[in-house]
């Protein structure tokens, strides 16, 4: 995916491209759900359906050399950061052509060349790595920023507090992006946090905090640009609070017994970021279908690619343990 010129906001011309990107992620995730239900995909899978604007909006704002660390819900971030759908799908199928060569799977997607320091299966596991990476950039005088994605559930864990505290203390060029979808698996925010506005947590560290509607890709982009510029200028880390919506369950197959079905339906109708952008662009059905067909073909091709991929040799399990 070509990187657009870095600007403070997205041009109208870019937005069609952005929609395509978000739609690609959507169709990819839907395909993943379908293939998982067909019994073809091993392991745990967490799709980012509903959170496409966060991934695309933020990643479009990054510059070359910037790096990200993601969560267990990493497909969107991985695609938005530039990994080809073929490599991602191949990884989900456990093939050597996968971005982690079959060693990681959905929760351990790495694409170091493209600045993706990895998904993490441990909540908050990657946060200190971002503080550390930003520290390295600072010590070496590089104009790069390290950016972490995490969810509202992660704001309670030790690494969150320790990593943000240290990042702010040392004023490293880091951006911490909270995708606040109000759910930590099956636990609503009201049951996992005693405060209502999680941005207060950043303020507790004296860290600059920005907020945006996570379903509005333009707003996400703008806010991300702001945050990155601030950090890059050496002013210190920034906390970006994105209000977003997880339209499906925590994992594929999650019946979401804990969620109000009506509320979920309403969110799907009113807060789908793709629907919102489509409406904003006033795209005709034909235009949209054209995009849809395009991305669907890419997704289906990625499944073909993955299915025809190479299984690792069993003994490969003993490689890559030590450098």
């Amino acid at each position, binding site marked *: 995916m070509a990187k657009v010129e870095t600007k403070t906001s997205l041009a109208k011309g870019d937005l069609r491209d952005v929609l395509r990107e978000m739609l690609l992620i959507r169709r990819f995730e839907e395909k993943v759900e379908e293939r998982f239900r067909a019994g073809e995909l091993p392991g745990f899978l967490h799709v980012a359906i509903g959170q496409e604007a966060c991934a695309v909006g933020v990643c479009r704002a990054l510059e070359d050399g910037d790096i990200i660390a993601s969560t267990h819900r990493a497909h969107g971030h991985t695609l938005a950061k530039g990994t080809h759908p073929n490599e991602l799908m191949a990884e989900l199928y456990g093939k050597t052509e*996968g971005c982690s060569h079959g060693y990681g799977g959905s929760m*351990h997607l790495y694409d170091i060349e493209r600045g993706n320091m990895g998904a*993490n299966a441990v909540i908050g596991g990657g946060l200190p790595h971002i503080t550390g990476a930003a520290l390295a950039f600072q*010590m070496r005088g590089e104009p790069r920023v390290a950016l972490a994605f995490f969810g509202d559930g992660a704001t309670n864990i030790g690494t969150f507090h320790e990593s943000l505290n*240290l990042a702010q203390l040392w004023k490293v060029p880091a951006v911490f992006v909270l995708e606040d979808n109000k759910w930590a698996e099956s636990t609503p925010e009201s049951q996992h946090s005693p405060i209502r506005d999680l941005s207060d947590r950043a303020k507790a560290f004296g860290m600059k905090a920005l907020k945006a509607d996570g379903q509005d890709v333009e707003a996400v982009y703008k806010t991300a640009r702001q945050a990155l510029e601030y950090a890059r200028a050496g002013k210190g880390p920034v906390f970006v609070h994105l209000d977003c919506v997880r339209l499906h369950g925590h994992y594929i197959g999650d019946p979401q017994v804990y969620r109000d079905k009506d509320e979920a339906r309403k969110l799907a109708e009113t807060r789908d970021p793709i629907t919102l952008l489509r409406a904003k662009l006033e795209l005709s059905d034909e235009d949209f279908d054209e995009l849809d067909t395009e991305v669907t073909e890419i997704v289906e091709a990625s499944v073909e690619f993955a299915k025809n991929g190479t299984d690792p040799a069993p003994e490969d399990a003993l490689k890559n343990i*030590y450098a």
Partner: protein
Amino acid sequence: MPELSYREAVRDALATAMRQDDNVFIMGEDIAEMGGSMGVTSGMLEEFGRERVRNTPISEMALAGTAIGAAMQGMRPVAEIMYEDFMTLAAEQVVNQAAKLRYMSGGQLSVPVVFRTQGGAGWSPGAQHAQQLEAWFVHIPGLKVVFASTPEDVRGLLWSAIYDDNPVVFFEHRTLYGIKGNVPEKIEPIPIGKARIHREGEDVTVIATGRLVHESLAAAEEAEKEGVSVEVVDPRTLQPLDEETLVASVKKTNRAVVAHEAVTRMGFGAEVASVLQYQAFDWLDAPIERVGAKFSPLPFAPVMEQFVVPHADDVLAAIMRTVGRGD
């Protein structure tokens, strides 16, 4: 040959690396003005400044994780975890992250980080400030684990650990910081994974780590008077283990004692004994003895601490049992 204390030897490795390599820096709690709780980094703030001698808040997870993050970007940080007991706090990052990042990425990255820490009983530090937890970390594929017992070894091995591209858990022992020993004029890197034979003998091999290396040498002297010739070997690297040297020694002497300060039960010594039993089965003339701490947290009162922790006479008793002259 110059003489350095174990503490000075650690500092020498760190400082020399930092002088010639901008990628090397240190971080830890109280390592700046105070020079570290054990005085290891004393003087380093003055020489290298705050950028490279980074005092951290009390946040072991961030300490370890930030070091990991910087290492992933090509730096060679050495993170000090003040007490081995606090490795428990850093463990998520050391075990779930550092040990596995290379693997899970299919070999795309490496994590050249060193986690330095110190432990051990002596002078009543109490149960939460004295543990020897090497058994946990040797059990994690992806980590290398080093435990040197002399100034020469600790300096040469720390150097090798810094320049190893893998995460290394580097154990030091608190009662050894003051011991002095000869070191080569210039730092000679000691390969990770090679044992050292301190003393040659014919009748029984004692494999010892950390403080127990010195206890075993003392026990060997006593055993000599009883006509028992003891070979003392320090593996120095616990993971990967120099099985070749250990097995060859036991095949020579036909008897083995494994001694460490850590709790005997389920300890590192159990793995060594198993390796020896398997590879030297037909050479064993006696069961393999293990010497270690009794199965209890470390008590505070000195007489109780003495009781729990192993000493030279425990090693001597084990030696004599292997030659059929013990109870």
